[in-house]
């Protein structure tokens, strides 16, 4: 455990573990947190895991963790580490995690909550029927290997080509819903078998589809650009690359463990195993990760189509087109450019449970949003608020264009299940006006809101630290889980 006395206060929202704390640290480590969040996270191994990130070969400036921090299995959740590509910096599949491009998509309707409140239960039921968990039966789409390979190359765009959505959907996805350089040959047959029938499925755990109402607007100008207004109905989708991504990570962590000694790399945790980005192993993984990322974007695109189908079935109107506000990845490795010590460097930015938050003017942001910054979508825990924020220039200067990704757990699934039964929790949430449709009551209990940090407090930290700016807050009215 890293003692709290080691932390140096930089601001009320930012703390630093100096490089001198452990001999193998290459850079300091920084935590975005209030004192309370810092103390709470200090009770598990989160900060030891953060210090491990500061040992990655080629890591630049500092290893970071966001206020939704909690212990993970390599990187802490909320971790950000950027390695210099041209200086032997490594790519670590274990740092990016098993759920490659786990992420969040937000859709907006042109309906006000009052117009649909009588039909929310039916909507929840229809979405539950249309979006399978995929933990049992597969999804609606069974692809041949050639079709799956096309999906791995094309991502959300390929899904649109097949008729599941519109070209306009793609404009507001991070990386336009597909990274370049995907080579399906780099993805194992096992990974393809695990994923071949899982498109359009949400999975289990903390994944969900939620119908929400916009409760408060903080930044009216940015909200107007994003097409958001008070009382509007929105839909949030949280899922990733399913079994395909899990297997890609499994395959490549094993490969990396086998080649580290060849590259003279030693690390404090096997799970962080990696190879220099420019080596054949680094390149092969990056290409396979890209396939996993594209699969996840295709998945969220098909789920968008499924949600639209459910809305059409229940509301039977032609004017409730669900439009994409934005779609972000929060487990990913991205090539980005930053100025380090006065020099522009190409970095591989690992984000594990952290969201990209590019500031205004960045060329990768679609022109319709460019002047406000990239939307950052933060799902809360079940039954609590979710947020839309926008990225800032300060994030570009200070946090490798990164922000938090959610509330962050604070209690184990086991402890949550001991404290509440799923059916009781369902009744409690329904008492608060939140419709719940879930395939598993035990799974529901594990995701109880009290098992998470207060999302309002987490978002307040990134807002006050200036690495993202609050735009709108939503409340759930229907939660659909696998």
């Amino acid at each position, binding site marked *: 455990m890293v003692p709290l006395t080691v932390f140096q206060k930089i601001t009320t929202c930012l703390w630093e573990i100096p490089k001198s704390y452990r001999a193998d640290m290459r850079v300091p480590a920084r935590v975005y947190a209030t004192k309370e969040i810092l103390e709470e996270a200090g009770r*598990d191994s989160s900060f030891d895991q953060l210090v491990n990130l500061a040992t990655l070969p080629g890591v630049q400036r500092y290893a970071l963790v966001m206020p939704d921090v*909690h*212990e*993970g*299995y*390599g990187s802490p*959740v909320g971790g950000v580490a950027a390695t210099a590509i041209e200086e032997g910096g490594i790519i670590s599949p*274990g740092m990016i*995690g*098993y*759920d490659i491009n786990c992420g969040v998509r937000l859709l907006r309707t042109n309906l006000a909550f009052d117009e649909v409140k009588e039909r929310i239960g039916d909507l929840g039921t229809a979405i539950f029927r249309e979006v399978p*968990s995929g*933990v*049992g*039966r597969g999804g609606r789409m069974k692809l041949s290997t050639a079709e799956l390979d096309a999906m791995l190359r094309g991502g959300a765009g390929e899904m649109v080509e097949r008729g599941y959505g519109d070209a306009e959907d793609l404009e507001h996805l991070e990386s336009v819903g597909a990274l370049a350089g995907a080579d399906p040959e780099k993805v194992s047959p*096992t990974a393809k*078998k*695990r994923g071949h029938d899982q498109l359009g499925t949400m*999975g*289990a*755990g903390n994944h969900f589809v939620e119908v929400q109402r916009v409760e408060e607007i903080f930044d009216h100008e940015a909200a107007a650009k994003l097409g958001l207004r008070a009382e509007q109905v929105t839909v949030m989708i949280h899922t990733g690359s399913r*079994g395909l991504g*899990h*297997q890609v*990570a*499994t395959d490549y*962590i*094993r490969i990396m*463990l*086998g080649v580290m000694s060849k590259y003279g790399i030693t690390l404090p*945790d*096997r*799970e962080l*195993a990696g190879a220099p980005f420019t080596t054949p192993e680094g390149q092969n993984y990056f290409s396979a990760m890209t396939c996993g990322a594209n699969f996840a974007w295709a998945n969220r695109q098909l789920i968008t189509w499924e949600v639209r189908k459910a809305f059409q079935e229940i509301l039977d109107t032609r004017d409730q087109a669900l439009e994409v506000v934005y779609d972000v990845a929060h487990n990913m490795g991205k090539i980005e450019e930053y100025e380090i010590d006065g020099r522009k460097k190409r970095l591989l930015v690992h984000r594990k449970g952290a969201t990209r938050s590019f500031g205004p003017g960045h060329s990768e942001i679609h022109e319709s949003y460019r002047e406000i910054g990239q939307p950052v979508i933060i799902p809360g825990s079940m039954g609590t608020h979710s947020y839309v924020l926008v990225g800032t220039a300060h994030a570009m200067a200070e946090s490798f264009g990164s922000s938090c990704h959610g509330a962050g*757990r*604070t*209690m*184990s*699934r*086991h*402890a949550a299940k001991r404290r509440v039964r799923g059916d009781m929790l369902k009744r409690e949430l329904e008492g608060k006006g939140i419709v719940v449709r879930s395939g*598993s009551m*035990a*799974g529901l209990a594990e995701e109880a809101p009290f098992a998470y940090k207060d999302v309002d407090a987490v978002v307040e930290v990134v807002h006050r630290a200036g690495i993202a700016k609050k735009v709108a807050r939503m409340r759930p009215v229907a939660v659909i889980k*696998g």
Partner: protein
Amino acid sequence: MDYEVLPHTADLRIRARGRTLADLFRGSLRGMSSVMRSAALEMSPTIKREIAIAAPDEPSLLIDFLSEALSSAQVNREVYNGATFEELTTRSLRAILHGVPVDAFEKDIKAATYHGVEIKETDEGYEATVIYDI
């Protein structure tokens, strides 16, 4: 009990024990399977899957064994409640997994991780704790 589920903030931590290395590997497998589909543990196996693994060291061999079983379970929709080892050294194994078909899993285990894994020798034999991403 040859395994027990321990607390972890977000993921799943399972400790297994065994008199022999083979018992430890089997206990770890059963621990993982108990989370995937608990009822499958007590059923008579009807399926056999052969696996062969080589790894740089013993802890990696355990994780690779569990990963292989997990991938096979997910692809074939099966759960394995036992294993017989034809060969088990510190760096390689050949085994037959015994299992049953399932229509669905109770939990979607994403992966067995290498995080902090070590195989400890105890007075009673061996012990290992594995963290799974769920």
